[in-house]
């Protein structure tokens, strides 16, 4: 199972707000063992999806140069279960950003119904932790593109977001490698 708990972004404004969708289907593994016979989305996996929405919003501010990790959940309210066949919409807003971390609030909706609210605190890993990116750059770039971040994302003044050079270079290098063995790959 891939650890993607959102399907795509529908809005993304640098440093301010992001909206992501997560469609729930009964074919997903988590429904097999979480409350068997009564398939509902686990609240912890909803938090993961909300953290992915807000965490990418926080990380994008500095071109994913910071290593952003979910550090604390300040509030988590769940108003009703989310079921297979429904689509969750996570609306994340950044409340504060410092050199050490960031605060964000995320509301989850199904249609217009508010189903969950969380306040999340993210920390930026510093030199006390082993250096290097948390993800393989080429995999991370592929994930961001899969989430349509660069199809919908804009800067605060409305300009399209661009994949940071570090990740674009990794993507380019991977593409060159694939092309060398004659397998065209669409990456952009």
């Amino acid at each position, binding site marked *: 199972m891939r650890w993607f708990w959102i399907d795509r972004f529908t809005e993304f404004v640098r440093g301010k707000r992001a909206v992501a969708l997560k469609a729930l289907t009964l074919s997903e593994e988590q429904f097999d063992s979480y409350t068997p016979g009564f398939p509902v989305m686990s609240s912890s996996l909803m938090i993961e999806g909300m953290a992915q929405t807000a965490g990418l919003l926080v990380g994008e501010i500095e071109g994913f140069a910071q290593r952003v990790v979910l550090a*604390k959940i300040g509030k988590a309210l769940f108003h009703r279960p989310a079921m297979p066949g429904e689509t969750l919409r996570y609306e994340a807003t950044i409340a*504060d950003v410092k050199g050490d971390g960031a*605060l964000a609030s995320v509301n989850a909706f199904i249609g217009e119904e508010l189903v969950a609210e969380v306040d999340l*605190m993210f920390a930026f890993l510093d030199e006390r932790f082993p250096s290097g990116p948390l993800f393989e750059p080429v995999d991370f770039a592929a994930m961001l593109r899969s989430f349509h971040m660069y199809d919908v994302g804009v800067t605060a003044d409305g300009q399209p977001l661009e994949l940071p050079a570090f990740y674009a270079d990794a993507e380019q290098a991977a593409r060159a490698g694939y092309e060398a063995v004659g397998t065209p790959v669409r990456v952009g």
Partner: protein
Amino acid sequence: MPVTKDEVYKKVQTALVDALGVDDEEVTPQATMVGDLGAESIDFLDIVFKLEKAFGIEIPRKELSPEDILTNASYVQDGKVTAAGIAELKKRMPFVDFTKFEANPQVREFSNLLTVGDLCRYVEGKIGAA
């Protein structure tokens, strides 16, 4: 009108109750952040966010976490903070009572030094509380 010390205390208490999930009565001026209230390193970031918002101040990391002093070889010998190191700490953190720490200045003891009262004095100094 300047904020009173009592108002500072109330807001600090609210921030700590929210950040640490402790009860109001556990937050006393003498309570240590780590030993008594169970604060972990990540909680301090949360507390800083909350205090900055509550008081409209900016809290640079070094002012509450003097890691640069505690990891500096010129200020630490055999796991103990030297007299010069303690002097630096006092300069950086004048709101902290170092009496107990000076008796046993082990670096590992430092994390359990900060009290709720220290935090209040720090904020009072920042905002010029009456």
